[in-house]
């Protein structure tokens, strides 16, 4: 497996762990490192990385799972839209089991007759729209900068092909404003960030400059064990030397300038708006909505959505977990009532959610 196996080589992993140990010994305090991306949370759990690290390194998970940070209100709107007659509601599979207010989910809606279609690529919507001209295709636009350009590409294609029965319910979010919110959170004391690999493929390194500017270490990191360990080692070196910068560990996946072609496309279709994040509240200019030129592809402009009274699931601590101030074990429901088979909150639903990862691997 080229570009995978090489980064799982036990000899490399052992050598990196030695480097981490040596560097960690030179730092007298406990180092708190946040991995922002859900795929990192999952990989760190899966490869058992926490257990391998010296005692003075603490890894905490952040708000990097798009499913987990989707607000209860947006989940409720999705459920409403999926229930409209004549609608085919397309979504990535991760959203299927996320409970809305009252415990309903897209999966349950589907079981009771709604046409919910799981897609692995947004471009399947083009085929769906052409094959079902009498139906309205709604795509749940979810994801960070990694995913949003793919939705933008589909909107641009539908616009060019004059496809009129397709729209996007955009709950897309952008990562840097969330990092700003974390940096400003007085309850958090983060020494360094493992920055997401594939978000960075798109947005590049300069987008994280506020991290070193705030005195924290930063490294864009890949997803294999050697990547994550080297990322941690780079952070420790920055902390030890005091020289903070946005380093790129994941050089095989990220150009410093990012993917400007994809970002230009994103910016030609979407514009920023305020967005509500589960756990973090409303963060200014952290969401994306369709620009006026593409208004006819905006689900919220095509359909009247009634005022829905949404509420976070009572007892679920996802909000604090997404901010990195609590661990799943701190939630009284964890493993007792809330399990992957019977998830109460989104952090247990998504395979990249912190609760689901802790359930499986700790």
């Amino acid at each position, binding site marked *: *497996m*080229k*570009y*995978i196996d*090489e*980064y799982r*080589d036990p*000899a*490399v992993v*052992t*050598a*990196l762990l030695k*480097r981490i140990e040596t560097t960690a010994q030179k730092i007298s305090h406990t180092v708190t490192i946040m991995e922002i*991306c*859900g*795929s990192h949370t999952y990989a760190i759990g899966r490869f058992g990385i926490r257990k391998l690290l010296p005692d003075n390194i603490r890894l905490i998970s952040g708000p*990097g*799972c*798009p*499913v987990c940070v989707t607000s209860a209100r947006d989940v409720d709107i999705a459920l409403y839209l999926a229930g409209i007659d004549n609608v085919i509601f397309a979504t*990535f599979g*991760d959203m299927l089991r996320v409970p809305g207010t009252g415990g309903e989910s897209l999966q349950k809606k589907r079981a009771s007759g709604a046409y919910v279609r799981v897609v*692995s*690529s*947004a*471009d*399947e919507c083009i085929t769906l729209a052409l094959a079902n001209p009498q139906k309205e295709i709604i795509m749940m636009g*979810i*994801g*960070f900068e*990694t*995913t949003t*350009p*793919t939705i933008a*590409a589909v909107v641009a294609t539908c616009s060019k092909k004059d496809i009129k029965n397709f729209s996007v319910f955009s709950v897309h979010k952008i990562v840097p404003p969330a990092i700003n919110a974390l940096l400003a959170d007085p309850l958090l004391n983060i020494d360094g960030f493992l920055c*997401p*690999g*594939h*978000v960075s*493929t*798109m947005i590049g390194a300069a987008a994280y400059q506020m991290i070193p500017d705030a005195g924290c270490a930063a490294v864009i990191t890949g*997803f294999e064990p*050697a990547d994550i360990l*080297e990322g941690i080692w780079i952070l420790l070196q920055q902390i030890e030397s005091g020289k903070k910068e946005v380093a790129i560990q994941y*050089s*095989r*996946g*990220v*150009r410093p300038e*990012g*993917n*400007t*072609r*994809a970002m230009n*496309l994103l910016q030609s279709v979407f514009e920023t708006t305020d967005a509500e994040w589960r756990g973090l509240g409303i963060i200014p200019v952290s969401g994306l909505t369709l620009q006026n030129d593409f208004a006819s592809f905006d689900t919220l402009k095509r359909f009247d959505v009634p005022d829905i009274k949404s509420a976070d699931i009572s007892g679920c601590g996802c909000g604090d977990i997404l901010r990195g101030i609590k661990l799943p074990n701190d939630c009284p429901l964890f493993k007792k009532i809330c399990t992957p088979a019977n998830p109460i909150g989104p952090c247990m639903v*998504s395979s*990249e959610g912190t609760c689901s990862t802790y359930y499986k691997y700790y």
Partner: protein
Amino acid sequence: MCIGFPGKIISIDENNYAIIDISGTQREVCLDIIDEPAEVGDYVISHAGYAIHKIDPDTAKEKLDFLKEIIDHEIY
């Protein structure tokens, strides 16, 4: 959700869709938003049905050489 896989391009059709091989599994990906033009034989990272990045073999090799080096040498 931001998961991406490295795969080798096996073929490219006239609509700019490629078949890539990800360790034995073949997938179709669209090349419309990739950062650099890619050809058959190139490795790309794919996400949600789109190739998002062409892997530069030299950059990847540099990193692997570095990782191998730290197995063999104390570098500080």
